[in-house]
């Protein structure tokens, strides 16, 4: 029986879809059967980030409305064994699906897959309610900014109220140089304030833009630093202990020297 994990954030544009795509790739690379569900109905994005937009025939709403069977709507990624996508509808709105229907769909996917990752839309309204409906646990994405961390805190409260076990945090778009200069909150600052467990840190990485442009998630190649982070997160999701690379603090002699002189 597979596990359903929702990727959520509250604030928009902080990297939920990027995280879902890359974590999905990294889990599939570990040999785990993984299905990505785009719950952002009306604003579908996961298909283009994954480069699967040309293969969509049916979508989540078609499944829910009984126009097709779940299996028919799933798109298998031909580049990577074990990775599938259930796309969102682009023409409907969030009310086209109810939380109960969402739970039915994710429960059916559990029979087939090891992990089901649900990409939540921004906000705390019905789209969010749908996304968390069938979830066993949650990953919260936040960037090191006041508004993002604030919204993450709100989401943590709502997940607690929905009795979804303690969420774990992904800090995205961290810029270690800025943290060292005192111009950006550190991972420890954020973890301290939100009081939740960290599951990963993803640096700001130009490769994310390049790979998203191409529709080949960064985790598919070995060259991107962000891709490396997603691979670590995938192993932690699976329950492995993976040490955190020190991204906040400068390491080594030159790092310390730079810190003394206050440079990045």
């Amino acid at each position, binding site marked *: 029986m597979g596990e359903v994990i929702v990727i959520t954030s509250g604030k928009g544009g902080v990297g939920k879809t990027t995280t879902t795509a890359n974590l999905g790739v990294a889990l599939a690379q570990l040999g785990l059967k993984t299905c990505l569900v785009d719950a952002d109905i009306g604003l579908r994005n996961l298909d283009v980030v994954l480069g699967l937009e040309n293969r969509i025939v049916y979508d989540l709403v078609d499944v829910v409305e009984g126009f097709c069977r779940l299996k028919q709507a799933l798109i298998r990624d031909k580049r990577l064994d074990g990775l599938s996508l259930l796309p969102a509808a682009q023409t409907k709105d969030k009310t086209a699906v109810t939380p109960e229907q969402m739970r039915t769909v994710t429960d059916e996917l559990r029979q087939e897959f090891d992990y089901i990752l649900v990409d939540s839309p921004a906000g705390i309204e019905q789209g969010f309610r749908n996304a968390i409906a069938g979830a066993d646990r949650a990953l919260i994405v936040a960037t090191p900014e*006041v508004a993002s961390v*604030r919204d993450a805190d*709100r989401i943590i409260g709502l997940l607690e109220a929905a009795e979804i076990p303690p969420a774990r945090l992904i800090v995205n778009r961290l810029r270690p140089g800025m943290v060292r200069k*005192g*111009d*950006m909150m550190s991972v420890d*600052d954020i973890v301290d*304030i939100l009081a939740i467990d960290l599951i990963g840190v993803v640096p700001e990485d130009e490769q994310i833009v390049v790979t998203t442009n191409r529709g080949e998630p960064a985790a598919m190649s070995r060259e991107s630093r962000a891709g490396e982070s997603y691979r670590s997160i995938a192993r932690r999701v699976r329950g492995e202990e993976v040490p955190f690379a020190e991204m906040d603090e400068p390491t080594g002699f030159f790092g310390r020297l730079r810190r003394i002189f206050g440079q990045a």
Partner: protein
Amino acid sequence: MLNFFGRSQSRDVAKNRLRNVLAHDRADTSPEFMEHLRDDVMRIVSEYVEVGGQGVDLQLQSVEDHVALVANIPVKQLRRRGRPGNN
């Protein structure tokens, strides 16, 4: 920490603003939170003083760079000995 120009580092400013805003958010999004806190304070304080007037008034206030929990507790009279239960 202050930087070269004597301004607080934006990292510290961000942390303080967040702590501040989250204190208010958490209190606002959970109406029972302040109520429970007020009840508990009332219970403890009553062991030492006879609370008068409207009872315990609790408020979150932003003071300079931090959040303060400010209590206004009208006192009718102090009990002769604290913690009557232990007499």
